[in-house]
């Protein structure tokens, strides 16, 4: 790029092109949506299978896998941050949204576990599903990506449905919610990201 003066229209074109270059850089690659989506889907289906087909008493232990996913997420974010050459407001806000989501999940699990006790699954499932919808919907709005918005709203719908289905099938609602809220948008984001890189 030269360091010389130019016409008015060329100036506006230059501004537009630089803003577009910056915007294309911040595309979300969908990786963490897919990692979490598949983890939750696996846990949800595995718990259902262990409980119903094998009558395994500690079926809920399968959810311990999420700690491994969390460790991977921390590792991935740290690695990504080291490589990051540009910081954007969008990414900052998105990180805060997911941070709030994680805090709310832990708090709700703790509070409901303490207050409701043994029968907490019936309360926890719709509450968790409602929470799942929040980061997806907000991310969709921030990234202007409709599939995430639809995914978030689907989570809220499954939260209502969860109130009317037998307790034995509740865990499958998590799988259903993450397919629409994280897995499908994750693949769509991945495709969009690869296309923008070209």
């Amino acid at each position, binding site marked *: *790029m*030269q*360091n*010389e*003066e*130019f016409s*008015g*229209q060329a*100036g*506006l074109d*230059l*501004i537009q092109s*630089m*803003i577009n*270059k*910056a*915007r294309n*850089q911040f595309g979300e690659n969908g990786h963490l949506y897919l990692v979490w989506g598949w983890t939750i889907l696996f846990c949800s289906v595995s718990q259902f299978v262990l409980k119903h087909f094998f009558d395994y008493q500690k079926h809920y232990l399968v959810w311990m896998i999420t700690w491994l996913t969390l460790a991977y997420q921390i590792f991935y974010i740290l690695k990504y941050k*080291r490589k990051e*050459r*540009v*910081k*954007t*407001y969008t990414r*900052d806000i998105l990180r805060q949204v997911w941070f709030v989501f994680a805090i709310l999940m832990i708090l709700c699990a703790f509070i409901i576990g303490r207050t409701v006790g043994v029968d907490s699954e019936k309360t926890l499932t719709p509450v968790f599903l409602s929470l799942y919808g929040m980061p997806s919907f907000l991310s969709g709005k921030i990234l202007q990506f409709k599939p995430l918005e639809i995914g978030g709203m689907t989570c809220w719908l499954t939260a209502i449905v969860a109130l009317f289905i037998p307790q034995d099938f509740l865990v499958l609602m998590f799988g259903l919610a993450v397919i629409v809220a994280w897995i499908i948008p994750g693949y769509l984001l991945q495709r969009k990201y690869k296309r923008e890189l070209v």
Partner: protein
Amino acid sequence: MSDFKELDPVLHSQLRLAVISLLISVKEAEFTYIKEKTGSTAGNLSVQLQKLKDAGYIEIVKQYKDNYPQTICRITKEGIDAFEIYVKNLQSYLKVKK
């Protein structure tokens, strides 16, 4: 160049305008990122960044990351204001010309 009298001379240069347009869209960016996106040479970019800094339009932070020197640039409030005025003036100039 009399038509451009009202345009800020600091911004009315291809590379400096490109840098400001890039920085207005982000929180901060590394020197290498700006160099890549503007397609400029390191030497020319350094000189133009210094001019923007002298005008108070950007901040430059030099630090070390993983034992390598790193230069980070971010736009200032004055830079944002100057950019907005520049774009407005450019648009009104184009309207007058039409």
